[in-house]
């Protein structure tokens, strides 16, 4: 049942209902003074006025107010309607249907998809439109992707409806209603907004009337409720976590799936399947307790570098909730690091590179780390080909041979990275002459002296360029705290060539400097890699620091594991600045393609992909200059918000409260089948007005007698 008005603007005149009371109050304020001899008789009369007389007075006032209200209502042409049938009578209709196409609409009923029923209901609404009526349908998950227009052609409206698919995301009712009110700003005989939804709580959680900016509470809002609360097993994958540091070929990758059960019953024998590149890798059978979460772990190993796509899937008959969560992996081949030990000790522990090699490969096994360090002595450098190595690390190497120098320059020119650790064996004159003073210079600073202090005293590491990509691995405060607690007893004094220090000691002396040489980069650590000059190798920060520096030298790539982004969110991808102006081809999960142009931003070429409205794996391809497609190692996953799988509904009163003062009528979908009737209440109101006026006149006369 609903009541609406053909000319709702007249309802503003309801303020006139206060006129009788205002006149009454004004009359009371506007007193006429009369000097009179028989005031005692007036006092006596007032005392004798009966309660019924006073009551009559107020009834007269109420009747006058009621009469004004009736007159205003009469002008507004009220129409009473039962059922959910569209209005039949009085002026052209403008109707906006907001179709809830959020993921939760998929599980509204056991035997039938709620979204199908919602579309069918919308179709019936549009079929009821008459000549001159106009309509529009707006999907609630894409309400911002307009522009939306009211259309008079029913076939066009039906086509628009057919184009709406169920989305993986959450409904944005605020935006949808805002669009509807904006559309209905145009004048029309009567206006209606229909919202067809499963009343899923998740969509309404974030709803706030203030987001609508403007709305017209006089426009009837009819909410067609799809589906009934069910007791289906309701579970989903809440999130995927990766526990490995970096993703490399042959490395074990630990993946943990967090499952959540929204229903009040335990879900037994739930199968969790891990799929990678279309093949099932592993599956586990679990019992998911009622209204609880459960972590399920998997382990993966990748056999080639490059991009991988995968997903986890819940399998259970009759399970309601999104069963699939997508993820992507980008596996790097192992980073090969050549470590040159300038002070090999008698035992392994005493060697200059013992801590360094362990930091790069803690377990010492071939496939346990992303890094593959190889330790050599300086004499072997002349015969080793540097090409297989992404990083060279010199540890306390006394001198740089003349034959080695051009090889180093060539290595750097081809994009290689070199890290110099110094020590007591380093001959500063040799380093300065060959690596700093000769052209092109390799070192970022000239060595000017050696500083050693006895005992535990020494300098601490004080300054840290935390934003530098070489130090990304030690972002965590606990690691930085560990770094600052390091005592450096011995170090080389340097005179930087203008390069800024990544790390500095408490006395201001630079500890770590960087220099870019051609496409390559050089890092210079002014202390030793072992425990001779500092206690850094014993600190927690040592391992992530060394790995971070090695990764940086190798180009910053350590492989990635990405659990994806929520549906509807945009994805930003950066490329080198030379890519500005080119187009990025995006292949969506449904194999449709779009193109996004790369724009310059912050010294990079940036692509922002906004159309992430489908769940699944998105592929990115950057066509080369010749026009062919060169697949980039870029894949990303888009997942539904896990709360969208929660089938909990908002109750009718809660929804009305959220929408107040918008007058919302919540109608079960079946009402549409039952149809309805409508009555123009004008004649009834006219009769009532006449009766009211007659009663007022009679009572007023009696009061004055």
């Amino acid at each position, binding site marked *: 049942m609903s009541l609406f008005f053909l000319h709702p603007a007249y309802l503003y005149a309801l303020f006139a209902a206060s006129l009788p009371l205002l006149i009454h109050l004004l009359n009371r304020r506007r*007193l006429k*003074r009369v000097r009179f*001899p028989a005031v005692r*008789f*007036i006092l006596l009369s*007032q005392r004798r006025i009966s309660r019924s007389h006073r009551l009559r007075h107020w009834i007269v006032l109420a009747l006058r107010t009621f009469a004004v209200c009736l007159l205003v209502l009469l002008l507004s042409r009220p129409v009473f309607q039962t059922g959910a049938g569209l209005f039949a009578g009085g002026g052209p209709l403008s109707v906006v249907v907001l179709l809830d196409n959020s993921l939760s609409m998929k599980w509204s009923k056991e035997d039938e998809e709620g979204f199908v029923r919602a579309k069918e209901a919308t179709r019936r609404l549009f079929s009821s439109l008459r000549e001159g009526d106009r309509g529009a349908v707006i999907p609630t998950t894409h309400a911002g992707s307009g522009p939306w227009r009211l259309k008079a052609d029913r076939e066009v409206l039906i086509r628009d409806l057919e184009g709406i698919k169920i989305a993986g995301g959450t409904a944005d009712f605020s935006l949808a209603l805002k669009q509807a009110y904006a559309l209905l700003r145009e004048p029309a005989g009567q206006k209606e907004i229909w919202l067809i939804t499963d009343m899923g709580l998740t969509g309404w959680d974030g709803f706030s009337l203030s987001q609508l900016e403007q709305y017209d509470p006089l426009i009837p809002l009819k909410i067609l409720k799809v589906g009934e609360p069910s007791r289906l097993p309701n579970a989903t994958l809440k999130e995927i976590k990766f526990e490995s540091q970096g993703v490399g070929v042959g490395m074990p990758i630990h993946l943990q799936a967090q499952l959540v059960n929204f229903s009040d019953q335990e879900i037994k024998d739930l199968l969790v399947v891990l799929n990678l590149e279309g093949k099932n890798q592993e599956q586990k059978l679990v019992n998911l307790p009622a209204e609880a979460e459960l972590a399920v772990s998997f382990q993966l190993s990748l056999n080639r570098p490059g991009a991988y796509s995968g997903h986890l899937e819940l399998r259970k008959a009759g399970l309601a909730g999104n069963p699939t969560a997508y993820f992507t992996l980008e596996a790097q081949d192992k980073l090969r690091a050549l470590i040159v030990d300038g002070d090999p000790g008698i035992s392994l522990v005493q060697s200059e590179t013992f801590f360094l090699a362990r930091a790069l490969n803690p377990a010492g096994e071939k496939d346990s780390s992303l890094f593959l360090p190889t330790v050599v002595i300086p004499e072997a450098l002349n015969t080793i080909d540097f090409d297989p190595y992404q990083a060279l690390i010199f540890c306390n190497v006394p001198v740089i041979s003349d034959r080695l120098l051009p090889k180093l320059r060539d290595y750097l020119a081809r994009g290689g990275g070199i890290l110099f650790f110094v020590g007591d064996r380093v001959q500063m004159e040799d380093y300065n002459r060959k690596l700093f003073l000769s052209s092109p210079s390799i070192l970022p600073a000239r060595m000017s002296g050696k500083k050693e202090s006895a005992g535990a005293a020494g300098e601490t590491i004080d300054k840290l360029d935390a934003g530098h990509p070489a130090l990304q691995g030690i972002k965590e405060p606990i690691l930085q705290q560990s770094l600052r607690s390091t005592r450096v007893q011995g170090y080389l004094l340097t005179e930087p060539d203008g390069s800024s220090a990544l790390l500095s000691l408490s006395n201001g002396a630079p500890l770590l400097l960087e220099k870019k040489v051609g496409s390559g980069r050089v890092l210079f650590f002014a202390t030793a890699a072992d425990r001779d000059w500092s206690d850094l190798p014993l600190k927690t920060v040592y391992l992530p620091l060394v790995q971070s520096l090695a990764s940086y030298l190798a180009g910053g790539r350590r492989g990635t594991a990405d659990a994806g982004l929520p549906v509807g969110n945009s994805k930003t991808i950066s490329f080198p600045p030379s890519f500005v102006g080119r187009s990025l081809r995006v292949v969506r999960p449904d194999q449709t393609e779009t193109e996004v142009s790369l724009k310059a931003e912050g010294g990079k070429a940036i692509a922002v992909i906004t159309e992430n409205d489908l769940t699944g794996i998105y592929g990115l391809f950057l066509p080369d200059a010749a026009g062919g497609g060169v697949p980039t190692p870029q894949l990303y996953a888009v997942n539904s918000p896990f709360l969208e799988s929660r089938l909990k509904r908002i109750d009718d009163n809660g929804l009305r409260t959220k929408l107040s003062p918008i007058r919302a009528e919540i109608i079960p979908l079946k009402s549409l089948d039952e149809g309805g009737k409508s009555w123009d209440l004008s004649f009834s109101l006219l009769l009532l007005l006449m009766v009211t006026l007659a009663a007022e006149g009679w009572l007023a006369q009696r009061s*004055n007698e």
Partner: protein
Amino acid sequence: MADGQQNYFDPLVLARLSNLYLRARWVVEGVISGIHRSRARGFSVEFEEHREYSPGDELRRVDWKALGKFDRYFIKEYEDETNLRAYLLLDSSASMDYASNGITKFAYGCTLTASLAYLILKQQDAAGLVTFSNRVESFVPPKAKRGYLMEMLRALEASRPSGETKVGKILYEIAGQMKRRGLVVLVSDLLDDPEEILRGLRLFRLKGNDVIVFHLLDPAELDLPFDGNILFEDLEQAGLEVTADPRAIRGIYRKVVEEFTQHLRSECHGDSIDYQLLTTSTPLDHALVSYLSWRG
């Protein structure tokens, strides 16, 4: 009241009143002969009858001629001719200074009082005047002199309505001071405690006076013909005010006033007091004529 004299002696009123006799229901003490007969027998004026002598009769009243004729002792009886002593009591309280139709109750009361005085004096009876509010404002003792009217009129002219009405108290006071019986004419709006008023009137009656009450009200006091919300301020009691919608209380008000006048009327009737309700819109001559005609 510069032209008060002319007003009080409206020729039309006087022409009609001059043909009327004011007859007291009770003869009061007096010596004037004529139309006013006293029930007290005297010897001064006119012979009425003989009666036989009985022991105790005064010897000077024996008719010696009748003894000579009939050889029996007769006593001569005379009918006394008495003067009417009329006390005209005019209320001059502030409440009398009210007019809704151009003439205040006080002005009307003055005219009425003067007319009565003229009539009484023309009949060669004695007329006196008392104006009062909560005290006696002026007192002109009753006399039967023809020129005495001017003195009374001057007293009336000098009066101004002011003060609070205390009719009951004043009547009690005046009644206590009256030495001789007579006619008491009260002209007032009687806006006082009715029981007090009646007590005072009864005292007059107990002393053998004839009492006439002219209850004088303004038509607005009877009908409350106002509109809108009104703050009524009392003419006599400062600070006594009440806000009312006359339309809402008019019916009740009329009933209250009716009860008040009816109570006075019935009580007066029970005490043989003549009561006449007048409004300031009632023609003065009509009021007098109708009253005096009724009085016979």
